């Protein structure tokens, strides 16, 4: 979940209405914003990825105003249509990055902190809904440095301009290899010959989407008018991103003027509110709260939506930036938030069903109890383990290995096909503890088959100077006889690396092999640095005591 830094005193100013620090801290969690840490005036909060409108102080303040009852309903935004600003899209972008949208934000002022907030928002939007800039990426520019109309077109890799935070002209290739943005996001355009570019009427480069803006249009604290452009591979998602930026800049005090967009299936964004007709029965059905229609309307307004009673239903107006709202269930949640989660009374209804443990659990519990009765301590190991423990140190056959891709941890790369190697590893980590050491583990093991076969095994291991095959055979037979009345036999097995030659066997129940037993090979014990005798067995419980 994304984390952002907020300044309480700035939030208080934005919210207005003289709210205290405490009121703000108390309400934040009820917007779904978890407070990660507090450090004087600064707090860090975590917001949900479905609410990118909470990625700045502006968006958070907009939400707080609602729940605190300071301002309710939709944030009114109008777009002037004077036709002064336009962008044309070239058909060469069709297979590269076909869509662009944008708007002009006018007559605002930004201080250094505001700009910082906008930069962080941009990064969050790029990582989240922008899918690391592949789906959509945003550029903010000082509109007064630009000669309109703009062209969104393609260029060659030799194209040169001065990128943001630089003072020298560089080619596209140089930008891709020299700048941080180029290194991080160059993969989006891969090895394309034609590179997306936004040029103004004087052929100045404005932006090289989705990598970097030009230095020419850098937004500073002197900027009054801003061009917002969003490019991407999907028309809806570029407009989603634009709507978030617009809502944020509106809260920061800007007004808007249209940017006309045309060419190659692009069009000027409408950014209209939506209306969903809400059936009030959902409130009692889903929340379990009986509420009047007008109360529901009030709750929705507290969540910065507009709503009005229409006969027996509610017409709910959703601003463009709330694209997380799909249907009535999302509105139920809005009502719950407006009502206040803290005000909802939990209710304990009697269960009409009788609880039951799974047969696997019941049988496994029984055999685990017997193991404890026989003096064994239960161990728990990861089912995702390492090749080193599972195969290399135990010299077991690794031909049926099941691996995961790109594990971040070397100790967790292979699904275990046996429990004994893990127990040997446990013994090796406990050589300084007193003996005898007796461990058991029950757990899932994996093997290949349609596509993966999972079964539950039980393994037992004993370590001390006098342990031997016969002791383990007695334990194994007792485990299966107790409660389950299973009679087992051991039969000489062919040589195995894990065990001492002549001191291991296959375990059979009704002529079916269910496991292996033996004294652990001294060479293997040496690789685990175990300096005493060890014997163990492993049996497959699936198909034996449960299906």
């Amino acid at each position, binding site marked *: 979940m994304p984390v952002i830094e907020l300044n309480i005193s700035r939030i208080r100013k934005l919210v207005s209405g003289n709210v205290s620090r405490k009121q703000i801290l108390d309400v934040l969690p009820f917007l779904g914003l978890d407070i990660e840490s507090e450090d004087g005036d600064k707090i860090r909060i975590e917001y949900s990825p479905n609410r990118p409108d909470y990625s700045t102080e502006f968006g958070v303040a907009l939400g707080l105003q609602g729940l605190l009852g300071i301002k309710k309903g939709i944030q009114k935004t109008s777009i002037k249509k004077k036709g002064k600003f336009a962008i044309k899209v070239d058909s060469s972008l069709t297979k590269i990055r076909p869509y662009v949208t944008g708007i002009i934000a006018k007559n605002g002022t930004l201080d250094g902190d505001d700009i910082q907030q906008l930069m962080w928002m941009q990064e969050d939007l790029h990582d989240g809904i922008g899918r690391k800039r592949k789906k959509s990426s945003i550029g903010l520019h000082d509109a007064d440095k630009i000669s309109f109309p703009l062209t969104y077109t393609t260029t060659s890799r030799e194209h040169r301009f001065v990128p943001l935070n630089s003072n020298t002209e560089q080619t596209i290739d140089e930008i891709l290899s020299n700048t941080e943005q180029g290194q991080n996001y160059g993969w989006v355009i891969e090895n394309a010959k034609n590179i997306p570019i936004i040029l103004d009427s004087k052929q100045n480069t404005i932006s090289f989407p989705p990598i970097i803006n030009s230095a020419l249009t850098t937004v500073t604290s002197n900027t009054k008018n801003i061009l917002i452009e969003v490019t991407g591979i999907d028309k809806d998602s570029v407009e989603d991103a634009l709507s978030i930026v617009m809502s944020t800049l509106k809260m920061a005090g800007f007004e808007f003027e249209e940017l006309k967009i045309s060419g190659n299936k692009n069009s000027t964004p409408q950014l209209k509110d939506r209306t969903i007709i809400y059936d009030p029965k959902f409130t009692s059905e889903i929340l379990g709260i009986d509420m009047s229609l007008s109360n529901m309307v009030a709750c929705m307004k507290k969540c910065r939506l507009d709503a009005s009673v229409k006969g027996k239903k509610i017409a709910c107006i959703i601003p463009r930036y709330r694209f997380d709202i799909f249907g009535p269930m999302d509105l139920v949640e809005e009502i719950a938030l407006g009502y206040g989660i803290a005000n909802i009374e939990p209710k304990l209804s009697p269960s009409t069903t009788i*609880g039951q443990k799974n047969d696997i659990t019941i049988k496994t519990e029984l055999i685990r109890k017997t193991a404890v009765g026989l003096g064994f301590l239960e161990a728990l190991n990861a089912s995702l383990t390492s090749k080193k423990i599972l195969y290399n140190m135990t010299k077991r056959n690794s031909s049926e290995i099941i691996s995961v891709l790109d594990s971040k*941890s070397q100790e967790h790369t292979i699904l275990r096909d046996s429990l004994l190697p893990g127990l040997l590893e446990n013994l090796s980590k406990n050589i300084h503890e007193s003996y005898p050491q007796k461990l058991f583990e029950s757990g899932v093991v994996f093997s290949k088959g349609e*596509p993966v076969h999972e079964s539950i095994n039980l393994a037992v291991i004993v370590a001390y100077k006098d342990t031997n095959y016969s002791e383990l055979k007695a334990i194994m037979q007792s485990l299966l006889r107790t409660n389950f009345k299973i009679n087992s036999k051991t039969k000489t097995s062919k040589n195995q690396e894990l065990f001492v030659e002549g001191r291991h066997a296959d375990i059979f129940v009704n002529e079916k092999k269910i496991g292996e037993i033996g004294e652990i090979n001294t060479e293997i014990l040496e690789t685990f640095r175990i300096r005493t005798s060890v014997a163990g067995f492993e049996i497959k419980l699936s198909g034996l005591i449960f299906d």
Partner: protein
Amino acid sequence: MSQVFHDIEKKILETLQKVPNQTPEQLSKNTELSIDQIRRGIEWLRLKGFAIVTESEKITLSLGPNGLDSLKNGLPERKLINMLKDEPKTFEQIRSVLSGAGFNVAIANAKKNGWIKIEKDNSDSLVSIKEKPIETPEEKLLSFIGEKTVLQEEITNSLAMKILLSRPNYIIQTSEKLKNISLTDAALSLDTSISSSGAIDVEADVSSIFAARTHPLQDTIDEIREIFVNLGFSEIFGSMTQSSFWNFDALFTPQDHPARELQDTFYLEDMELKNPATASQIKNISSSHSKNWKYDWKLSESQKMVLRTHTTCVTIKHLAEQKPENARIFSLGRVFRNEKVSYKHLVEFNQIEGIVIGNNTTLRDLMGIQKEFYKKLGLTKIKFWPTFFPYTEPSLQTMVYNEKLGKWIELFGMGIFRPEVTKPLGIDKPVLAWGGGIERIAMLKYELDDVREFYNNNLSWLRSV
């Protein structure tokens, strides 16, 4: 101190009461106990204040190689006298028999004893007997020691001993520390027969033994399972390896969602499930994704096998297959996340998840179940906060106040399955879902601040917790 004695102690006490002051060796002989048992018994009695251990030094003497030679053939000066018995001899003649150092020693000692006189000739000196040589104290001492080892205090002529000790390899002197055991006055008057037979020192320390037991984390898992069962939930069991279809697609997670990337989820190398679901399930899920998330849903993405990232895939599959009208079910087991392992993150941990379908399926009912669940765990100070899960709406999380840490801790999450999840699978009733990680609760229970401890299988912890 209770006056209860071990059999060893009793035997030592009784022997010493008869013969005070004995060495451990003597005690061993008299009690027929091994020297180790005697040593242990002495130490116990000493600690109880009944035995006094004094140490003394024992010095013994025996003959060295020169001494043994002299015992047989006489000291060098005696050998010289024997040569001179018949007639005087020159130095040269004597040297032919008594060579090297022996010559000088013999001449010097015979002269010192006043046995010989030496007359100088032109070229040589002539030695003759001056007086009849009697047996010297040194010779007496040699034959006294003989081939035995004697205590130094048995030797009466200490001058002779000093002289022989000054001559190399005649006498070997060895010293040995000796322990002497005696009883305190209290012990001398003790009646050891008073203590009832078979009684032992019940206050003495004993060595530790460790209980065999189930794993503490497994105990917490079992406890939580039991609570679910008590709340009317029945357990279902599902695979840890799942197709992306049930782990993600069926739960309304779009195929380009960051959670589906390799860096968050474990994909099985070269493994896919050709038919992850029925044709109609695939068709419905595909169109729900295309309509709501506006992208081209691909079957191939949903066929990729993953290690389940939650147990929800097990419950949703069960619902889609069984379509129960009224049910409370839960699924419990290991889930996986491709994360860096740290004190608060594991790649593999246990999760439980319950669902309710049928009557009484409002958010308030779900909150009521939560409250009851935590009450059974002994957690009574709880509150609910809104949160977000891709497949539930509305969604809440429980915050539980921990007195020890002095803060609110996030525990289980809950919500109502989105219609975008249930409708395509043919489920038309609201489904409540709730659950979370178990290790976090176990950490609170066992007061651990490193979650890795649960899987270290560290015997010192398992044997003491």
